[in-house]
């Protein structure tokens, strides 16, 4: 191997790690170049969504299941943190962990019966759960504040250092998002992750190969619910105000759209999907009336032409092109002899 080939091989071998390092550096330096609080607020929103979408993608993309109910876990995290810190006066960090653990238990309790269902039944059941949760948020107003929402959630802090402006929140939220990213990247390369991929491919075949499909599905469901809960806690502490509208079934559908547009079963696609769908309303500012067309249109077009999503779809297209070109070159050289 020549030196150049060695370097290229090194880059190829460590492409995931290098991309993570590159992304971390870019995020570290981002606030130096961009100090507009509005823009930072948006990128923070992307990070919160990315945490949820990463977990949801494990469930939808890797395990091949459907959940139209993850806004409920997001909301449980947000309201859980709000009630624990304001009403019960718990410190914010342990409250966040406690709420995430509780949400994990709830997801376990729901997941065991619900994940026996497949396809439309699962879609309906998760959608139903989200709707029940949303109605409780609206109706149980002595606890949740009802339709007018819940005010006065404190900022997170370490000692006297408060995460109270966009730049500080940027580091906090993106830090958590990067941790979630690392967790997912490592998980899908572990034995559990390979089992998951097998599950998405063919459940019967996976079971025949010794993957415990029931327990794997439940575990991923619980993990994705806990990630959504943590994102919810961060959401509550960032905006200090939450209302039921952020956790309804349309938001749950949006999370799934992010997964699908970015690419089912693509970790990096989750980031792209979260970024694209979160930014879309901003770019569409002038076209407020046409927002729905573009929102739905992107989903429809991606599903029609790149059903694996943008990231996986484009990478596969590139790979096919490359393979075809190599084959053509090989044939020309062969005929040249």
């Amino acid at each position, binding site marked *: 191997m020549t030196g150049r080939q060695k370097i290229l091989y090194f880059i190829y071998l460590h492409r995931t790690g290098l991309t993570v390092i590159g992304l971390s550096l870019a995020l570290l330096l981002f606030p130096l170049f961009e100090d507009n609080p509005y823009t930072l607020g948006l990128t923070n929103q992307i990070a919160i969504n990315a945490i949820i979408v990463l977990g949801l993608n494990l469930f939808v993309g890797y395990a091949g299941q*459907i959940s139209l109910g993850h806004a409920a876990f997001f909301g449980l995290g947000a309201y859980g943190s709000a009630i624990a810190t304001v009403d019960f006066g718990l410190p914010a960090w342990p409250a966040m962990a406690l709420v995430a653990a509780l949400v994990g238990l709830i997801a376990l309790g729901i997941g065991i*019966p619900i994940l026996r269902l497949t396809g439309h039944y699962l879609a*309906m059941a998760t959608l*139903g759960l989200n*709707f029940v949760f949303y109605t409780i948020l609206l109706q149980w107003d002595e606890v949740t504040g009802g339709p007018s929402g819940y005010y006065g959630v404190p900022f997170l802090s370490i000692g006297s250092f408060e995460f109270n402006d966009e730049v500080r929140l940027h580091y906090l939220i993106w830090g958590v998002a990067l941790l979630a990213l690392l967790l997912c990247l490592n998980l899908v390369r572990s034995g559990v992750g390979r089992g998951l991929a097998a599950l998405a491919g063919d459940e019967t075949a996976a079971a025949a190969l010794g993957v415990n499909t029931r327990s794997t599905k439940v575990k991923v469901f619980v993990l994705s619910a806990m990630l959504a809960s943590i994102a919810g806690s961060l959401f509550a502490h960032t905006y200090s105000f939450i209302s039921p509208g952020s956790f309804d079934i349309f938001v749950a*559908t949006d999370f799934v*759209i992010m997964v699908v547009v970015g690419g089912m079963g693509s970790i990096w696609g989750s980031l792209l999907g979260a970024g694209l769908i979160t930014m879309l309303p901003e770019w569409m500012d002038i076209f407020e009336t046409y927002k729905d067309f573009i929102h739905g249109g992107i989903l*429809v077009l991606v*599903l029609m032409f790149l059903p694996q999503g943008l990231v996986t779809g484009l990478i596969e297209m590139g790979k096919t092109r490359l393979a075809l070109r190599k084959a053509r070159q090989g044939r020309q050289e062969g005929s040249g002899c």
Partner: protein
Amino acid sequence: MGVSSAHMLQDFLQFTFAGLTNGAIYALIALGFSVVNNTMGIVNFVQVDFVSLGGMLMFSALFAAGLPMAPGLLLAVAGVALAAMLIERFGLRPARSGNHLVLIFLTVGLSIILRGVIKLVWGKNRMALPPLTPDVPVKIFGASVLPQALWILLLTLVTIALLTWFFYRTSLGLSMRAVANNPTAAAVVGIPAGRVRLTSYAIAGALGGLAGVLVTPITTLSYDVGVLLGLKGFAAAILGGFGSFPGAILGGLGLGLLESLTAGYWSSAYKDVVAFVVLLLVLFVRPKGLLGK
């Protein structure tokens, strides 16, 4: 004692009529979900917007075109059926994907687009649609019933009769049942898959549109009125056994009754939740639904 028990009976009848009325609407929507599921094997989330579109077209037929009730109703239902056929032909068929996740999410995307179109054309305001005949309550065993409720029950019965005739007596209906039964065998004997899919969408659209025309005088009319109604229709379809026509009707009526009895005797705040809680319980115990195969 005698007076209070008569009063209780009257209340019970009142709740039952209300439940049957809503249940008939859920049944119509559930039938629409079932038709598409049987021929294409997917959940058609656009169904929820067919309901809103039906109400909106009726509104325009009455107030923009100045038509009387009966032609307005027919025009609205036919309009939704046409829109549904266009959606199938240009929105769903080009995908040519066999992956169910992809197809289900595709209908979610199409539903968002259709909702956007409705919002753009008719605006976001809540509107009122007049009932088919003037609102003079009829007394039945002491319970007062709106004529619109009677219309809903009557037209639902007529629709079910028409559907039964269509699926058992016409060649297109029989071929649709053949596709539902075994798509491969149906293709082998030369049943045109495209026409069957188009027809199933038209029927689903007509059912959703009719539900919208009938229910919006009781509720209100807005671009997203169909979402909750449609989801309850979906719940009804699953409750009865997804794909089963008797199941859809039974599921719809059962859900409607349960809801109105809950609202009447317990709490109206959680009325909307009942449908989903019951659905979840049924799914846990018997995932195929009550009449599922």
